[in-house]
């Protein structure tokens, strides 16, 4: 096995890695169980499955639409065609979705390589940063499958190749991974940008040829997209602005003539949500609570833990910049810059409106930075002045605890989502049938899915620990 610079390999390294895997197992199992019991949502899933049955595969490659996701739909069509019944197809899609989520966590665990007890602790916290981040949580939605989760799964091994010694096939792998990511969701373009940026900063795994090919791919896709005529709505969904969510129609009336200010706001909001956990969907809910003097513990934990971690990452990034001429410093500096680019790029893609899921691709990179930053901070605390040791220990303990709570919150969020989706199946079926009475395939899909929507949910017994109340209705 080839070594990534500065990272211990061999039997001792593998033991630390195995310990990290072991620590992550309960989280992985809880995620898998919670995801498996979530019924498909009536709202979006039925419409997606209707498209899969009705539309020609080639129509998914039409660049004139606002959303272009040909690989995602091809994947769904593939599962749909291979299955002998709708029930089998739906079960396969759910299995694939759960596997994707677990593989993202698994790929992350494979990528962070603890080499001692301190870095094992930092890696364990980083796993909770990934799972507890809004970008990851929001993309656990089963549409069926989830495009962004699949993009994350493509991005993590790609980044591992970037930092590995160069091989002849790396360039092909980067181009294939970027093309695949773009086909799943257009934010996948950022993967190509990230690899080129790392290459420009002399990443060992990226050749000049790969950079040229990736640049050509990204420019060609953007060119095709811009030159293809199509109708783009000024605001496609409701817009979060300030302290409230503005209905799409109101946003059109107020800002339709010059929407660029709102676009800039939405772009900034996506980036701020990744870094500071506020605003949510463009709405400064926590700040509103603060002004009203009514704090929700959950919101406080989110904002404080994100802000504190971003400060630690900022300190580490500055240190990486100072040490960028050393091998390990250069690796860290590349990661910091690429993460910055992906956070900014995720914001740019969410110009029209912002949602937590837009921060999906940024989540694993932010968590990777968290690993390196927390390890550096922990080493600094252990080696620094004795007077500062205990305050540092308390701060690290609080930060690790807050992110652990957030990771548990993600599992509880899935539990609440299961109940919400079931409630929709209970209540909305007749209304949907009436609204879409002329869409035969839609109706047959609803009929086929209604049983899974009403199936009694497992795990309703047993009492939650009292402290779970901080999650409110989750």
């Amino acid at each position, binding site marked *: 096995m080839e070594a990534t610079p500065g990272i211990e390999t061999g039997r001792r390294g593998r033991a630390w890695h195995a310990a990290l895997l072991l620590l992550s197992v309960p989280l992985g199992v809880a995620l898998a169980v919670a995801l498996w019991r979530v019924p498909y949502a009536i709202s979006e899933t039925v419409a997606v499955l209707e498209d899969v049955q009705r539309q020609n595969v080639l129509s998914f490659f039409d660049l004139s639409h606002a959303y272009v996701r040909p690989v995602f739909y091809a994947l769904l069509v593939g599962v749909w065609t291979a299955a002998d019944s709708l029930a089998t197809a739906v079960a396969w899609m759910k299995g694939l979705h759960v596997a994707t989520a677990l593989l993202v966590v698994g790929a992350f665990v494979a990528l962070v390589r603890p080499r001692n007890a301190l870095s*094992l602790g930092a890696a364990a916290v980083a796993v909770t940063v990934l799972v507890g981040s809004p970008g990851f949580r929001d993309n656990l939605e089963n549409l069926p499958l989830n495009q962004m989760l699949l993009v994350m799964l493509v991005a993590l091994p790609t980044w591992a190749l970037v930092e590995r010694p160069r091989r002849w096939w790396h360039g092909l792998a980067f181009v294939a991974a970027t093309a695949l990511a773009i086909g799943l969701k257009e934010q996948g373009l950022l993967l190509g940008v990230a690899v080129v940026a790392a290459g420009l900063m002399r990443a060992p795994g990226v050749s000049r040829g790969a950079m040229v090919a990736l640049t050509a791919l990204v420019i060609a896709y953007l060119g095709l997209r811009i030159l293809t005529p199509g109708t783009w709505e000024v605001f496609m969904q409701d817009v979060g602005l300030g302290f409230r969510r503005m209905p799409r129609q109101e946003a059109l009336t107020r800002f339709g003539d010059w929407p660029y200010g709102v676009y800039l706001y939405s772009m900034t909001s996506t980036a701020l949500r990744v870094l500071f956990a506020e605003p949510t969907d463009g709405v400064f809910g926590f700040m509103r609570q603060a002004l009203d003097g009514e704090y929700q513990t959950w919101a406080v934990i989110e904002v404080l833990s994100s802000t504190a971690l971003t400060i630690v990452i900022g300190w580490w990034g500055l240190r990486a910049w100072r040490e960028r001429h050393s091998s390990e410093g250069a690796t860290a500096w590349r990661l910091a810059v690429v993460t910055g680019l992906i956070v900014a790029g995720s914001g740019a893609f969410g110009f029209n409106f912002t949602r937590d899921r837009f921060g999906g691709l940024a989540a694993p990179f932010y968590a990777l930075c968290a690993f390196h930053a927390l390890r550096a901070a922990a080493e600094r605390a252990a080696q620094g002045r004795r007077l500062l040791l205990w305050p540092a220990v308390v701060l690290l303990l609080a930060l690790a605890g807050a992110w652990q709570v957030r990771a548990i919150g993600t599992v509880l969020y899935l539990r609440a989502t299961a109940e919400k989706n079931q409630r929709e199946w209970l209540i909305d079926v007749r209304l949907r049938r009436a609204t879409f009475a002329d869409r035969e395939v839609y109706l047959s899909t609803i009929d086929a899915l209604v049983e899974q929507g*009403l199936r009694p949910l497992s795990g309703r017994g047993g009492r939650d620990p009292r402290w779970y109340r901080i999650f409110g209705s989750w």
Partner: protein
Amino acid sequence: MAASRGTWSVVALALMLPGLAGAVFLADLAARLATPPPAVQRSQDALMDAALTGTLTHALRLMQEGDDPVMPGPLVHGELTGGQEVTVTPLAIALALGDDNMVHMMLNHFVHPEDPRRAQARCLASRLKGGAATEAFADLLPLPDGGCPDLP
């Protein structure tokens, strides 16, 4: 400055302790989520109680196991019946309480379209003033062909 093994361990423990505690909570949560749903506690008025308290998922389980939302039964309720015993159906209770979600669920999944007791409930809804559930019910179901009977 080189760190002692003790200092190193304290800092490592600070990072790992929440993870170890979290693993215990998550294992417990996973085990609870994987537990098959418990058997429903059945009683004669269980569905009425569920309609009164608005517990959708409990009502769903009862109906999945055969309870009938349009089967009349006796009810004594301070607010709804003025403390008198009145014979009503769970669907009528949901309507009287204006529980939009409960009404939708009962009509969506558990009341047969041809059941004449739906018409009775529809007539009751037409006499209730306002409320989202009443309006929803009216949207879902036309009045019986012969109109509603006069109140005694």
